[in-house]
């Protein structure tokens, strides 16, 4: 498991009582599968966070999550300096002060949590994104796969449902396998059928899961290898919670892979860290922003939701 004490951000959230003063920023990450909201205190400490499945009305959901978090922490809305949105649905969040692409936000979060990282990988619900981090954590190159769901979070999700295993138990159950199965199909839809027929043949759930996790580790490893890095690698996104995938990935790549305590919140953290800060020059990110917009934004359903509202 990930050592919480090693993580400065999470550890310092214990000092909540001492942080009555100062300012707060909120990061909202509207992912394809789940929405993450987090409150950052004095641009360094996470003092509250929530994750819920993304709904058809992500703006209402995010607003509700934010209000709940503020209430739980006893923070007044006026004390919040900036709200920054990221993720595929970021532009739907009309109450945000600004928006950042998921690449830039994730890289920012990764650099903050683990500045040694040469490469940051985001294995999220609907895509695998790999970024090469340069000086100051600035993205020098990135690759995304958002066309195919194989080996992403929703792939593991679908398999867990087919096997009737809670998603949170997938990693541990799979680790107990002594006889991993080989999964022959790649496509999530076909793998679902394959899993069902393996169950019908009496194969053990842990062995099927081990086969699936090996497939995910292989794919994520191949994506990391395209950067030709020797590590260290930062890995975030929901799949970071799957201990067996991480273990298999470490074995496969034989390099240092750092997974933060709350891998799902890297993007939201990065977004909150984008709150105006005199030490960071915004312009350096602009170029990537545009490039990414072109490659990813074209006709996503979040953008359609937006354009329909504008009509």
């Amino acid at each position: 498991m990930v050592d919480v004490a090693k993580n400065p951000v999470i550890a310092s959230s214990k000092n909540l009582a001492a942080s009555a003063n100062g300012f707060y920023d909120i990061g909202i990450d509207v992912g394809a599968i789940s929405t993450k909201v987090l409150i950052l205190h004095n641009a360094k400490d996470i003092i509250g966070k929530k994750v819920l499945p993304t709904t058809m009305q992500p703006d209402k959901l995010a607003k509700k999550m934010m209000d709940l978090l503020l209430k739980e922490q006893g923070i007044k809305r006026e004390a919040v300096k900036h709200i920054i949105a990221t993720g595929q649905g970021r532009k739907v969040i009309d109450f945000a002060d600004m928006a950042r692409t998921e690449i830039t936000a994730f890289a920012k979060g990764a650099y903050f949590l683990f500045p040694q990282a040469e490469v940051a990988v985001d294995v999220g619900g609907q895509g695998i994104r790999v970024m090469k981090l340069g000086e100051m954590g600035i993205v020098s190159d990135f690759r995304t796969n958002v066309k195919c769901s194989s080996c992403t979070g929703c792939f593991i999700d679908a398999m867990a449902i087919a096997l009737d295993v809670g998603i949170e138990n997938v990693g541990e159950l799979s680790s107990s396998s002594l006889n991993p199965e080989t999964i022959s199909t790649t496509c999530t839809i076909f793998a679902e059928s394959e899993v069902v027929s393996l169950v019908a043949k009496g194969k053990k759930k842990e062995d099927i899961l081990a086969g699936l996790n090996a497939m995910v580790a292989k794919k994520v490893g191949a994506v990391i290898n395209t950067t030709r890095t020797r590590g260290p690698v930062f890995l975030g996104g929901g799949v970071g919670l799957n201990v067996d995938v991480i273990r298999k990935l470490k074995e496969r790549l034989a390099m240092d892979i750092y997974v933060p305590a709350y891998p799902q919140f890297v993007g939201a953290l990065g977004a909150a860290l984008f709150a105006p800060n005199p030490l960071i020059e915004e312009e350096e990110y602009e170029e990537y922003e545009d490039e990414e917009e072109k490659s990813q934004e074209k006709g996503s359903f979040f953008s359609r939701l937006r354009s329909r509202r504008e009509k």
Partner: protein
Amino acid sequence: MITAGVDLGSTYLKVVILKDKKRVGYGVAPTGHDHDLTSKQVLDEALLMSDLKKDEIDYIVSTGYGRRVTSLANETISEISANARGVQWLGEELGVRTIIDIGGQDTKVIALDDDLQIINFAMNDKCAAGTGRFLEILARVLDVPLDDMGALSLKSKDPVDITTTCLVFAKSEVANLIFQGYKKEDIIAGIHKAVARRLVAMAKKVGIRKVIFFDGGPARNIGMVAAMERELGMKMHVPDMPQIVTATGAALLAVNRFEEKGSS
């Protein structure tokens, strides 16, 4: 001579019985989990239709992705060969040069030369996009019976663009389109367009030559055919029973094999 072809597809199991090279019976049923049992049941159905008994059959050839699972067959053959054989027989006078065969879990494009022999082919069995499964699952999301998709889509005046490729993402996209109030017929027409685009892109890699023969279960969908023809910019030939072309091909190959065995 009486022969049978058994096509064990990923989704449907098809049986065709030939008597003196004429179709006298056929059967179609979901493949299910017990392939061997289903193949026997569907064969019985086809026998009933043809008014024949099982021991009157001289030779059985199985094909399709589950072809090795049935205990009925005397021999197995790949679905590419079986499909091409079926097309050669059905379309002898049509001058078919390209076959687009769309199945439940895979798609095949076969190029034929002037003697109707296979010269090239491409197959997608890696990704559900562009297969029958894409239509089947999205029909379920839309809560429209699969068989009604074609007629409904023809009502569309403004097909929606489906932007995602992966079926998993397309499911959310379609759910989202319904939520936003798009018309079902426009969404369905968009789905057909998305599948057609993938199939045509695949066919172009193999090389498209007239006449194009379109078969497999989804070829029964008139909306799918219309979308394909729009995407191709030309007409295709769709047989009366596109779902049993491959099983027919297997039964025809059974005729050849039985004759070969008899003469040797």
